[in-house]
């Protein structure tokens, strides 16, 4: 019965989808055409990518590089023609068209840093203008940014451009992932990564390369930034309610480029890009004191032979054998874009191939996208997008990994050097595990991915709009991990016989979404009501099958089936979600807007006893600068919008989390092996989603004719019913901890975006953008759960995963006694409490643009585990071995009391503590300033371009990661050795971010 009801619903949606394809069509002879140009009011330059539309219809056009547009099929009669573009104040032309008329509309747009007419797509029920959106939805105009900044990835786009969005590049290894947090970390046990949406459908996010240890590949790298028109960042629950019970960490919504309906033109753009990738660091030397045996004349150690036992010798295997190299990236792209009467298309093909800075590191990506948009009538538009991708990431072992270049090079000892040709460690950590052996390890992930979307907008009558979206993200990964068979003994144990692991992962994310909107004009048009409603079904599935083989005959036959011992494993996970939503917005004179909304969600991961999840929201936006009072008294502030919103959204538990489960596990009784079971998780039938609630207050202001813009937002996000994997006492015997809804985390802060265009004239213009945000992240309630975690501790009153350890109370340089606290105490924050960025564009001599950006993160610490390990565990650092390098005080602080027979550290209660308990010296200030990007773009003069057969072109030269200022003692404070971790700012043998120098040429035909 239930299945029949659902089928009925699905049939109704399908019927509606078919119905929209059969709208009434008026005869072409009755229609008029609107064409014209759009230019910059101050410079007179044509403006490309301006969206020009006929209000109340689906008809629209986009200007080309000459600023021209054309819209056909317009119904005669009074019309409002609207021109919209980010960075310019909107302009409207109202006129009356006659049948068959070709009307010429010329727009001159004024640059404006405050844009309230911009249409927001994400997080809204129906497209609405920014002025009516109560909660912040930040937008990055990627197509514009791409013109001036060297962009390689989506995370690159978001890096330091949106206040409240924190991007941490995990490492300098090519093809690896970044950590993205929006307004802090709200979840303790679940991912804090935002939801990723492409053209209205939810797509897979996350990291891969399960078979390898170290950095991961990132599905976000699958998306070519060249295909992106804009990215909207829905920051928190106040705006994300419409994304349902999985959006509390925010939403990154990618809108791809579309065709140019009615343009009647076809343009092509070809781009070439070359990057030189510099490792940007030199690994430190390893040190050791020679032993008596090694100093003998017959010694095989070339460093110690002939020395004394007091001699400190050094070695640097990575430098000696040239582990690092200058990498490069070559990118070639083609874009075709255009349209005819009632249709538009965008097509692209891109090929990038990158050799990283390590021998077996590379990232190749081939993408193709076709977007087709069709306007069969002024009541209907159909948009179809199809993106295919193949990427290959070769990611070497690194980080906390004995097969890594840094693990091997920085933990080796000079005492194992040999020059007699006999196989040995020879200064590396592992036996015979030098560059050649490490580089021979293959970790490769090949991804095939298809993202298909289809959206129909149907406006059967002026007051009713309908948007149907259906789409899927289908992916398949082929992962390989291969240790070649070798006679040197380079790898541990049986891996030397040849080890191969093949993993095949398949998955899909399917979205079916409907949104309707009824617009009513009340009180003679002064009061406008928009009632929106909809439903969404999400179905996600991920499965993998893995085969492993050990013992190969020859390395060329590195297949699992060729191995002498084989094994297999499998996983299959499915999650489904359904949501029903409604929203009512009242707008008064297009100035004051009040919005009420709600969503009702259920998820297959909820427990049997959990109810559907209710997600309300309320908000208001008031363009107060358009009131008479303001204009008469405060007119110098020409734009002022006040806004406030409160909303709720959630985070679903992982599939199966509500069940009491056992894990399959084999057993042996006698000599028989059989399939058995071990306790896995006690489950929780009351499990429901985390509930994020957010209050957001702020204003958007424009001064000096909107040449200066200021956005200010205060947010207060509280995550309740935290999904906490409540730590169980191990004595209960369960392998994993059950999720419980308990506790509370608060994220509060302010976000400020300042934008100014101090100078704008045809020969010289200058704009500057400054963004900043603060963050107060705090666990405010843990319910009945005791504080847990050791180095990263979860405890009330502190950040999620704040740094903890035994704290140094006193250091006595006379007695060598270092007293520490009895119990774990707070060291520092793990999340930055302040982030800021500044970027600027300078256009000069008409054809040149200089772009630069700089950013900072402050108020947090990073665990320098690399130095900790090299100084206190495997002693390889001259900090430890050379007593003149550090002061006595600092040596006591780091290593404790060196007196034999006395404990390294002494608790106040008199008991001893070890360096592992007292890591205070290695939890180091992670604050930094970084010169992130500098680029210079020269637009080719038309006559130069024409010699190449092109209409136009541009050359960009630039650099990324050009300067770093920080007190952090490691290589770089922006590394994360375990990007997957819910909270981790650990630097452990991680390759720091590289530096790039970039040359890019774009030609338009």
């Amino acid at each position, binding site marked *: *019965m*239930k*299945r029949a*009801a*659902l*089928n009925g*619903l699905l049939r109704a949606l399908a019927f509606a989808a078919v119905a929209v394809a059969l709208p009434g069509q008026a005869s072409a002879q009755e229609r008029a055409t609107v064409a014209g140009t759009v230019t910059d009011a101050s410079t007179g330059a044509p403006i490309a990518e301006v969206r020009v539309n006929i209000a109340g219809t689906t008809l629209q056009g986009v200007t080309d590089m000459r600023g021209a547009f054309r819209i056909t099929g317009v119904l005669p009669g009074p019309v409002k023609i609207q021109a919209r573009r980010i960075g310019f104040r909107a302009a409207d032309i109202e006129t009356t068209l006659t049948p068959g008329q070709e009307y010429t509309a010329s727009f001159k747009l004024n640059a404006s840093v405050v844009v309230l007419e911009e249409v927001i797509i994400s997080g809204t029920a129906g497209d609405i203008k920014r002025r009516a959106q109560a909660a912040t939805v930040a937008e990055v105009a990627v197509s514009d940014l791409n013109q001036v900044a060297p962009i390689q990835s989506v995370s690159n786009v978001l890096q330091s451009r949106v206040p409240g969005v924190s991007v941490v590049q995990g490492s300098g290894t090519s093809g690896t992932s970044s950590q993205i947090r929006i307004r802090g970390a709200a979840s303790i046990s679940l991912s804090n990564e935002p939801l990723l949406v492409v053209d209205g459908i939810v797509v897979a996010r996350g990291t891969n390369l399960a078979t390898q240890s170290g950095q991961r590949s990132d599905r976000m790298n699958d998306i070519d930034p060249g295909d992106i028109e804009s990215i909207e960042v829905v920051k928190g629950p106040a705006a994300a309610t419409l994304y349902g019970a999985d959006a509390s960490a925010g939403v990154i919504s990618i809108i791809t480029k579309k065709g140019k309906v009615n343009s009647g033109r076809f343009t092509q753009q070809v781009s070439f890009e070359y990057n030189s990738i510099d490792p940007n660091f030199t690994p430190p030397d390893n040190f050791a004191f020679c032993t008596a045996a090694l100093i003998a004349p017959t010694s095989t150690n070339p460093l110690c032979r002939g020395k004394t036992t007091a001699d400190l010798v050094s070695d640097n295997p990575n430098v000696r054998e040239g582990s690092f190299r200058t990498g490069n990236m070559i990118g070639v792209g083609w874009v075709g874009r255009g349209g005819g009467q009632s249709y538009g298309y965008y097509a692209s093909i891109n090929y990038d191939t990158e050799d990283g800075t390590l021998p077996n590191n590379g990232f190749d990506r081939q993408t193709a996208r076709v977007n087709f948009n069709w306007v069969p009538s002024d009541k209907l538009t159909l948009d179809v997008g199809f993106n295919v991708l193949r990427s290959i990431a070769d990611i070497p072992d690194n980080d906390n990994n004995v097969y890594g270049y840094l693990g091997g090079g920085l*933990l080796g000892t000079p*005492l*194992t050097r040999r020059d007699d040709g006999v196989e040995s*460690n020879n200064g590396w950590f592992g*036996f015979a595990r030098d560059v050649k052996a490490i580089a021979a390890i293959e970790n490769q992930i090949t991804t095939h991915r298809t993202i298909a979307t289809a959206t129909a907008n149907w406006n059967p009558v002026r007051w009713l709009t309908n948007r149907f979206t259906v789409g899927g993200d289908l992916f398949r990964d082929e992962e390989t991990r291969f240790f070649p068979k070798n006679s040197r003994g380079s790898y*541990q*144990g*049986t891996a030397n016989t040849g080890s191969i692991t093949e993993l095949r992962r398949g998955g899909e994310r399917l979205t079916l979404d409907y949104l309707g909107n*009824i617009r009513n004009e009340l009180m003679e048009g002064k009061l406008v009501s928009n009632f929106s409603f909809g*439903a969404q079904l999400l179905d996600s599935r991920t499965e993998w099958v893995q085969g492993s*083989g050990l013992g190969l005959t020859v390395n060329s036959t590195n297949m699992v089936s060729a191995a002498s*011992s084989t*094994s*297999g494993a499998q996983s299959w996970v499915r*999650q489904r979600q*359904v949501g029903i939503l409604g929203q009512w917005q009242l707008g008064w004179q297009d100035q004051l807007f009040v919005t009420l909304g709600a969503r*009702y969600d*259920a998820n297959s991961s*909820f427990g049997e006893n959990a109810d559907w999840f209710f997600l309300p929201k309320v908000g208001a936006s008031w363009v107060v600068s358009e009131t008479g009072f303001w204009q008469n008294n405060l007119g110098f502030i020409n734009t002022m919008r006040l806004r406030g919103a409160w909303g709720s959204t959630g985070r679903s538990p992982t*599939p199966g989390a509500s069940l009491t*489960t*056992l*894990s399959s*596990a*084999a*057993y*042996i*009784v006698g000599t028989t092996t059989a399939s*058995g*079971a*071990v*306790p896995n998780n006690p489950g929780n039938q009351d499990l429901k989603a985390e509930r994020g609630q957010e209050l957001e207050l702020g204003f958007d202001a424009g001064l000096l004719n909107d040449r200066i813009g200021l956005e200010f937002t205060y947010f207060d996000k509280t995550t309740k019913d935290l999904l906490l994997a409540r*730590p169980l*006492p*191990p*004595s*209960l*015997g*369960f392998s994993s901890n059950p999720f419980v809804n308990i506790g509370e985390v608060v994220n509060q802060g302010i976000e400020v975006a300042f934008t100014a265009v101090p100078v704008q004239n045809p020969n010289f213009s200058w704009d500057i953008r400054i963004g900043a945000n603060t963050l107060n992240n705090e666990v405010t309630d843990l319910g009945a759960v*005791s*504080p*847990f975690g*050791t180095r990263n501790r979860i405890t009330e009153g502190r950040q999620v995963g704040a740094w903890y350890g035994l704290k140094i109370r006193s250091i006595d340089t006379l007695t060598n006694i270092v007293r520490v606290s009895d*119990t774990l105490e707070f060291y520092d924050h793990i999340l930055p409490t302040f982030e800021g960025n500044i970027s600027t564009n300078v256009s000069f001599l008409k054809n040149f643009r200089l772009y630069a950006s700089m950013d900072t993160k402050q108020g947090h610490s990073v665990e320098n585990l690399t130095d900790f390990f090299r100084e206190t565990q*495997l*002693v390889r650092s001259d900090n*430890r071995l050379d007593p003149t390098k550090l002061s006595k005080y600092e040596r006591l602080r780091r290593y*404790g009391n060196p007196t034999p*027979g006395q404990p390294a550290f002494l608790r106040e209660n008199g008991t*001893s*503590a*070890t360096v*592992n308990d007292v890591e205070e010296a290695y939890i180091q200030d992670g604050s930094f300033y970084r010169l992130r990007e500098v680029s210079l773009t020269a637009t080719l003069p038309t006559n130069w371009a024409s010699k190449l057969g092109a209409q136009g072109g541009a050359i960009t030269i630039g650099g990324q990661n050009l300067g770093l200022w920080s007190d952090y003692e490691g290589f770089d404070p922006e590394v994360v050795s375990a990007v997957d971790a819910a909270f981790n700012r650990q630097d452990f043998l991680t390759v720091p971010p590289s530096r790039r120098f970039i040359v890019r040429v774009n030609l338009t035909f």
Partner: protein
Amino acid sequence: MKIMRTLARTLVAVGAIASAGCDEWLTVPNPTVIDINALDPVTDAPVLAGSAQQNFAVAYGWLIMYSSWFVGESDVAETFPTRNEFGRRDVVIQNGSHNTDVWFPLSQAAASAYLVLNLGDLPEPAKNINLQRGEVFLGYSYILMAEMFCTGTVLSGPELTTLNMLDSAVAHFTKAIDIGTANGTTDAVALANAARVGRARAHLQAGRKSQAAADAASVPAGFNFNLNYADDLANRTRLGNRLWQFIADRGSIAVSPIWRVTDPRVPQRVAPSNLLPQDANYTVDRGVPYVIQNKYPTFNAPIRLASKMEADYIAAEAGGDATMLALIQARRAANGQPPYNGGTTGTALMTEFMTQRGLEFYLEGKRLGDFRRADGAGQGAAVIGMPVPGSTYWKPGFAPVGAQKCWLLPTPEIDNNPNLSRGGN
């Protein structure tokens, strides 16, 4: 407004239909785990009992390895600081390996045995071999907990003293013996004999020598009970011999210099070139070659859990100097050693007895219990090879050797067990 009302009603209706249908749509399978409701307590009891035995076998391997480092049977030939804490007899309660590799596997072994015992409604409980299997391995879990941990707890219960744990072991072994006697099958008899050895061991550790001797005497000659392992690439961490795994895959265990003796009971060899210590500096720091044990030379090498040999040692120790001396001479003779001619009483005799016992049961997880038993009797020095408190650890850079005699409960247990009052932080 009429339109909106109509629409609102339609939406409510659609929502109601959808929510009804969605319950089924939202029900998805989870084949990666076993829903506990899918198990039948009766028909699946052998599965759970066999799993409980394997959980103990897993824990047994871990505990032998970590305790061997702690008592100096072997060297920590790897770099993990948490494992080196065992080699230094200075295991802090925050030590992650202590929780993950030692306490949790032992706890899971006990908990899964209790799962079997609490199934209820099993047929013929007085001679049900599944219940017996649960009793035996719960008994051994209690013994290892009592011998290695200063205090213990099971199933998030109250803190147990050493004597509490030994008494619990005795109680479960007694049930196992009763069931095995009633059952009478070969398997049940073997389990019952293992329980007899276990009960003797528990009594001896508790200082009840006469009861220990009585139980030891009831073990039939030639009895041997091994836990078997398998060379299964897909299940090496569960089915493989841990002592070999940590040599073959990780290079973690070296025979410590004091145990590098020529005795068939401690087979060993200089590691070949494909089996090297993870700590590249082992030979330089220790000053001796990297020698690995050869008692368990493969992934499928069995580990002895109980035997008449152990019963003999228990009986000899319970019997006093004369029986100890007799067994010493017998075992020396059997293993190519000249007769013992040292002191025949006191610490000298006990040292030789414990040394013979150490050779006999090398890497079988008994040495820490031996030390604690001897130390409790004021003869801790008789257990030679223990890292000496305050001495310099053989790896440079580490703090000196500590003085721990047993392991504390780890932080995750202390923090989360409501019956332990100490609290975390």
